[in-house]
């Protein structure tokens, strides 16, 4: 299954041993298989069902979103709901802000992390270990512990309600530096030495030889970072409170507060607008995402 989550563990999986205990018959196993599917179908309905419900409701009329008993499919498909959402609130601006914020943060994270990871793995300079462990210490401090003074620092810089504020403090990534350090530590030195013989300097060598070869790691990290940045509500929430710089997440909260409770079809359309980009990125890149999460999670 090409698009399925594949945990690269094939090597460890051998075909199951032939049943040793004849007691456990074919029928018993069949019951187990069916029971497992039943449990998993219920689990899938609970975990993924809300998204299906969201999309279907987003295409209903406002009265059929409230009708009892509820119907699964819309009577008429109201694609115009999406236009209404864009008309009711500046979701175009919100989208643009989210994209600028997420893309710029991601690029910054990838570039600075790759540079730092490379230096920590391959360059010798005094204090290398010390600096690395101090930076690693930041992982122990939740962002929520530093946000009060940070907001006042950013206010002093006039970075609240600005792209600078949304992007620049987000850029340093310890997780990213760690990921790239692990990668470069297992990177064959010979490849670099070939370039060194040509007399290329370190930066030159990094750009022309090392960076292109680390595309796999950079890609996996970039995808994770993009999703993280897109979803990073709390940070955006404390930085921005004007429409001009609101992201999709903030705009969604704003939109919700402006709607009357009965307009669930429009609310679900707005919700779909916020969820869909991440959902698409996830479905396309799920293998890299899962691998990245496991690398970060299991260190």
């Amino acid at each position, binding site marked *: 299954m090409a698009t399925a989550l594949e945990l690269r563990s094939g090597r460890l999986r051998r075909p199951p041993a032939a049943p040793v205990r004849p007691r456990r018959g074919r029928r018993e196993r069949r019951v187990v298989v069916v029971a497992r599917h039943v449990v998993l179908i219920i689990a899938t309905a609970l975990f993924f069902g809300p998204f299906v419900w969201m999309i279907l409701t987003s295409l209903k009329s406002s009265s059929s979103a409230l009708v009892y008993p509820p119907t699964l499919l819309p009577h008429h498909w109201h694609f115009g709901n999406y236009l209404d959402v864009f008309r009711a609130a500046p979701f175009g601006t919100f989208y643009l802000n989210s994209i600028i914020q997420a893309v710029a943060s991601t690029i910054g994270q990838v570039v600075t992390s790759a540079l730092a990871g490379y230096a920590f793995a391959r360059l010798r300079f005094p204090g290398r270990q010390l600096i690395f462990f101090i930076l690693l210490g930041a992982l122990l401090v939740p962002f929520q512990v*530093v946000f009060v003074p940070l907001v006042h620092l950013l206010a002093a810089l006039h970075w609240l309600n600005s792209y600078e504020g949304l992007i620049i403090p987000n850029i340093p990534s310890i997780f990213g530096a760690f990921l790239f350090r692990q990668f470069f530590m297992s990177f064959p030195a010979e490849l670099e030495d070939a370039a060194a013989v040509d007399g290329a300097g370190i930066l030159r060598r990094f750009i022309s030889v090392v960076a292109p070869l680390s595309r796999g790691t950079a890609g996996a990290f970039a995808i994770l970072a993009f999703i993280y940045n897109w979803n990073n509500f709390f940070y955006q929430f404390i930085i921005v409170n004007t429409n001009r710089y609101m992201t999709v997440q903030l705009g969604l909260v704003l939109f919700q507060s402006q709607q009357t409770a009965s307009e669930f079809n429009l609310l679900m359309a707005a919700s779909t607008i916020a969820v869909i980009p991440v959902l698409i990125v996830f479905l396309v890149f799920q293998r890299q995402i899962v691998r990245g999460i496991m690398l970060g999670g299991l260190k």
Partner: protein
Amino acid sequence: MEDKRSGGGVSRREEIIAGYAFVAPTAVLLSLFYFVPLIETFYYSFTKWDPASVTPAHYVGLANYRQLGGSVGFLPAVLHTLVYLAFTVPISVAVGLGLAMLLNRPFRGSGIYRTLVFTPYIAPIVGSALVFSYILSPLGGIANDLLSAFGIHPINFLAENPWAMIWLIIFSIWQVAGFNMVIYLAALASVPEVYYEAAEMDGARFFARFRHITWPLIWPSTLFLLVIGVVNSIQVFTQVYALTGGGPIDSTWTVIYWIYQEDFVYFNGGLATAGSVVLFLVGMILTLLQLRFLGRRRVEMMS
């Protein structure tokens, strides 16, 4: 640490300069936007500080910390956070493990199940919370439609006690279980098959195999998930803000919510940062306790 790189072609001096230059963007930005505010958090927690005025903060010793105990809302916020944590963490880890056990061996369709169950973890919380508030709405929400099929009157789940907290917990479990599953799937895949084969020869049944082989071998992952589960739970904000807004009254107020309110609404910067410091210390203590008591168990079992 052994250095694999041979220095050919580059002078020692150039290497040192490049080393600092490559690390600088991360180190400088992190210092400015993380380490400096961290130190400031500790500093301001000992001061009376109004972040909205130009009056400089002045030292008041431990007054803020003494005030925390008596302050309206802080202790309830701590209590709500602990209740939230006590249910969310163990249940989401158990659900993740259950899903991973069901999906460990590949079979037709297992990939689809994995993908769909994992989706809530990567979806934006604000969007998911909005869907939940529709499902739970007393007006046309399917949860209440189901109840009325059994003749039960609609319940305003997100505005009634204790339903708001219960649904906040369920929502958070729903959101994070897929992540726990992925971590457990990796752990389960690394348990050598020969162990199970040997156990099967001995006639060990499923629960015996699970207890004596699987559980001890995946314990490091369990410990990891418990530790990060606790760290994430004590700083929960977005789920609360998007789903219940802290209500009804203040029944789902959590610590971060309280800190946010003190600083951004009441401008008690000193009191807010004292709350941050307490949160930080509680997080550290809970993490160390878990590593100390739960980490040792693993060693005993593995030896």
